[in-house]
């Protein structure tokens, strides 16, 4: 089985935690088909559920394979699997949900689960920063823009202008490309590379995640980059204000398309529930 993909070194033995590449390939194919089904499209809701079930099965098999490799020791692994499962499954929901508001909320779930992974990696400050910046600021901005757009737009309704959330663009080709990339990366991770060994931890390396050490590192060896980041952020905020504040001329055909009632003669609007025009409500003089 392994002879199908010879490794670079030609070594027949698998490294620790390795997975046969044929298995990775097969799982990527199944996951690709599942993703094509689960993306919004013209098929039935039950078909999408089958696609979601396929994705869930692939993820569970993948997890079981990794667990069987004996990579897991200790209680921290339970948290790893919980956070990884939440992050990946809610990421799938981000790209497969019909309504953008729910996509944004599932993205929030991905962010929180990723913050949990960061805590497991002793990066407590980054976990806190991720929750503050992403969950607190970025997702809130996204939700505001979604509300602004849905208020006058018709994306929620299944009209001819509003079905762009329900029909994907080229799902098969996109899934082929995406899962080919994913299969290649996983192949490299699990089969080929023997990583450069862990360097000796610097002094106090056990406490490397503390905010104090990170701050010292940032303000001694990364000072210029940090100041540049501040400048970039300030420029982006000024640019966003300039871009979003500009007035644009409203195109006339778009106003018709959204059914704006300001241009409609009130006498020509039928009385609600009938075909009768409102002539009686607006009597001719």
């Amino acid at each position: 089985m392994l002879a199908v993909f010879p490794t670079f070194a030609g070594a027949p033995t698998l490294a620790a935690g390795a997975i046969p590449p044929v298995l990775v390939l097969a799982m990527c194919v199944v996951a690709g088909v599942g993703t094509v089904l689960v993306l919004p499209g013209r098929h039935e809701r039950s078909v999408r559920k089958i696609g979601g079930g396929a994705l869930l099965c692939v993820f569970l098999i993948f997890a079981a394979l990794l667990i069987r490799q004996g990579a897991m020791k200790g209680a921290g692994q339970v948290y790893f699997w919980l956070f990884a499962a939440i992050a990946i499954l809610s990421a799938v929901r981000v790209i497969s949900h019909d309504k953008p508001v729910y996509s944004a909320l599932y993205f929030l779930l991905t962010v929180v689960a990723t913050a949990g992974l960061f805590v497991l990696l002793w990066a407590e400050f980054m976990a806190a920063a991720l929750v503050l910046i992403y969950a607190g600021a970025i997702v809130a901005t996204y939700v505001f823009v979604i509300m602004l757009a849905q208020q006058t737009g018709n994306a929620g309704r299944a009209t001819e202008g509003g079905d762009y959330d329900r029909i994907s663009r080229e799902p098969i080709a996109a899934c082929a490309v995406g899962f080919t990339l994913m299969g290649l990366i996983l192949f490299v991770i699990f089969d080929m590379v023997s990583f450069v060994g862990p360097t000796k931890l610097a002094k106090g390396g056990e406490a490397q995640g503390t905010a104090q050490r990170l701050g010292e590192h940032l303000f001694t060896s990364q000072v210029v980059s940090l100041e540049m980041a501040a400048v970039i952020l300030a420029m982006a905020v000024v640019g966003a204000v300039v871009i979003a504040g500009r007035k644009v001329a409203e195109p006339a055909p778009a106003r018709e398309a959204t059914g704006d009632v300001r241009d409609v003669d009130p006498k020509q609007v039928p009385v609600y529930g009938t075909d009768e025009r409102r002539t009686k409500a607006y009597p001719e003089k």
Partner: protein
Amino acid sequence: MAMSEAVLRQYLAVGAILFAIGLIGFMTRRNLIVLFLSTEVMFQGVAVNFIAFGRYHGSLEGQAFVIFLLVIAAAEAALALGLIVQLFRRRHTLDAESWRELKG
């Protein structure tokens, strides 16, 4: 307590899967806002990779990189949402297909 190679592989796999999911979402979805949410999912995958490698090598460079990544993500979100508001004002739709004539 150094991190074993097998554990590093698990975290890298999570990062790769998140990146691929975001890529697929960016290519398939048609709503401009969901497009940019997909790029944020890709950012998450990259951040997991950085932090896992930083932990593996016992250095703080990974975390420092993720701070700059957060800065770029915040700047990108602010600019992209400003642009999306402008585009929505012009066409009254968030459909990316309504800007087809922009392709070269």
